[in-house]
């Protein structure tokens, strides 16, 4: 792989010095050769630069294409329902009434509940790895294991949740006296909470590690305890970074499809409590996309996809902006 460099670097000077001394005629030949070669190289260089620009441009085209496709395919639904689509409370394919409110509510409920459950855990991991034990085999093990949580395919989380988590939740629901269903927003929030822990945790860890040690040492020298340093120095300093981590987790939770579809209970009714079954935007698409047998229905589902796309994009963008501002400070 590296051979061409070597020949160029090593032989060219030899070539030059050797031939200049011995034969003059050959020198001009090799000069034109060299000029030809450099022309070729300039051309190759231009081709390469142009390829790079085209590739970079095509990323923009790709994202615009995705957005335009979604908008184009959902025009039918946008025209027929207008903006009221977003807070229409009824989703009734038989009568061609499409309101996304139950799904938007379901998505927000599951995602925020999952965040609330996962935040203490992901912060604990962040603080543990960032502040208490940044080094050592135990920390390495914890760090890698937490990262593996993100690696498990979501269809497997769903399968496991269905087989193990749902019966546990059902028992719990019997105990606290709500309708013992098992499937529902609460179960899907639990499995989502597990799935999003690594995102906030790894960002939190790197943010906490970036806190300048002189700040911490100043606090220690004033007699602060570990907890006081964490509360009054580290948390305020990393506030925006930690918040960005939460946003990234949220973006991930909003778009999660398979695991949620398998345990949320899938009903188009507006969920009455956090133990009720519901539906998220992604799970409706997964359930009904292949079933949609008339154009408006299909278009309404694609509009759900569009809403989901826009929401996740905005949340991710805010999160990324906050991180880059934090790291550039």
């Amino acid at each position, binding site marked *: 792989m590296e051979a061409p460099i070597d020949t160029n670097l090593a032989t060219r000077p030899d070539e030059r010095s050797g031939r200049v001394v011995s034969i003059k005629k050959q020198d001009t030949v090799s000069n034109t050769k060299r000029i030809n070669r450099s022309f070729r190289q300039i051309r190759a260089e231009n081709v390469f630069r142009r390829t790079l620009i085209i590739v970079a441009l095509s990323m923009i085209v790709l994202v615009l294409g995705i957005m335009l496709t979604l908008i184009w395919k959902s025009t039918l639904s946008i025209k027929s329902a207008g903006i009221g689509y977003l807070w229409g409370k009824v*989703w009734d*394919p*038989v009568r061609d009434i499409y309101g996304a409110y139950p799904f938007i509510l379901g998505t927000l409920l599951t995602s925020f509940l999952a965040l609330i459950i996962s935040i203490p855990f992901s912060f604990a991991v962040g603080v543990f790895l960032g502040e208490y034990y940044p080094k050592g085999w135990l920390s390495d093990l914890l760090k890698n294991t937490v990262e593996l949580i993100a690696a498990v395919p979501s269809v497997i989380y769903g399968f496991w949740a269905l087989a193990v988590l749902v*019966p546990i939740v059902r028992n719990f629901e019997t105990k606290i006296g709500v*309708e013992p*269903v098992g499937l529902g927003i609460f179960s899907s929030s639990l499995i989502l909470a597990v799935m999003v822990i690594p995102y906030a945790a790894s960002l939190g860890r790197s943010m906490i590690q970036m806190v300048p040690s002189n700040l911490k040492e100043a606090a220690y020298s004033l007699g602060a305890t570990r907890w006081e340093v964490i509360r009054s120095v580290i948390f305020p300093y990393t506030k925006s970074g930690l918040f960005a981590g939460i946003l990234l987790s949220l973006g991930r939770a909003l778009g999660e499809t398979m695991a949620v*579809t398998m345990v949320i209970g*899938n*009903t188009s009714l507006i969920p009455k409590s956090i133990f009720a079954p519901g539906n998220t935007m992604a799970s409706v698409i997964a359930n009904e996309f292949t079933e949609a047998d008339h*154009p408006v229905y299909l278009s309404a589902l694609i509009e759900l996809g569009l809403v989901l796309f826009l929401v996740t994009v905005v949340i991710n963008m805010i999160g990324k902006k906050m991180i880059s501002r934090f790291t550039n400070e």
Partner: protein
Amino acid sequence: MKILKSIALSGLAFAIAGSMLLTSCGGSGNASKADSSANTAGDANNILGAGSTFDNPLFSKMFSEYNKTNGLKVNYQSIGSGGGIQQLTAKTVDFGASDAPLNGKQDSALSGPAIHIPVTAGAVVVTYNLPDVKDTLMLTPDVLAKIFLGKITKWNDPAIQAINKSVKLPATGIVVSHRSDGSGTTNIFTTYLTKVSKDWEAGPGKGSSVNWPVGLGGKGNEGVAGSVKQTPGGIGYVELAYAIQNNMAFAKMQNKAGKFITPSIASVTAAANIDIPADAKVSLTNTDAADGYPISGLSWIIIYKEQKYGDRAMDKVTKMVKLIQWMVHDGQQFSAPLNYAPLSDKAVSVADAQLKSITFDGKPVLQ
């Protein structure tokens, strides 16, 4: 470190080379077959179908058996009845399978006339979970509709007690479960409720996914069965085959003739033994047959009547029609073991007539 790097590099190179090879294999394989055609038709030995989840187990058995004798590879994907129709409309599949006949809207979306060939029949049973009740419950259409409309909410409601006089019903609340995904099972069930209840007709109506007034959604038969099984007081509807295989309790339904009928292969076949119109588009729900189970339905394979579209070859079309013919006749032996009801003689003769009407470039495919 150096060694590890070179190993990884060579590994990557190998992976890329391997995938190139595979791709080129796929490419060249396709190129060699490309003379027959590139798109829908593909090579004549591969047929692609999609649709009803209800048919999937039976189809997988039939196609596997047919493959053993004829070598024809049928790829059937159970994406749901509506999906099958949609993909047939988009011409991305060779045949669709559906538990609901095409409605007017779907029919007009197709580019040409399509025919329905009945291939099997099934029943939707009402399953419930009442651990203390040993007898089989009996239900009337009216009570069933009221339960699914959320108007009857307790098991010891006088309306239920009146039908089941000898049974001691508990005061448990009724927890309704239904399918969350679009489904032919739902279509049969809601078509039935629409026929027997004015309130249902005015409310949720019929369709492969409707706006349920009460209850939990479960994905697939399993989702519904799961929530019924694990919820005392639960009630739901699943396919007969599924209920039998999982030893679930299911209710006797009162049919049009006033008899309470236990769902079984025999009572479904009886329900299907009615006059079937020439286009085979008939609903078996609320059947007139005296011994027929009222919540039954036919399942159809739907194909274009004129098979010469796109770049399909005659060879392939003939193979597909022969396959469907086999399914209607010899293939029926696989129905009963999997708890599907075999087609009645009338249905078979209608299917034969339909198959004869298939043309390729204006000429009938079957002589």
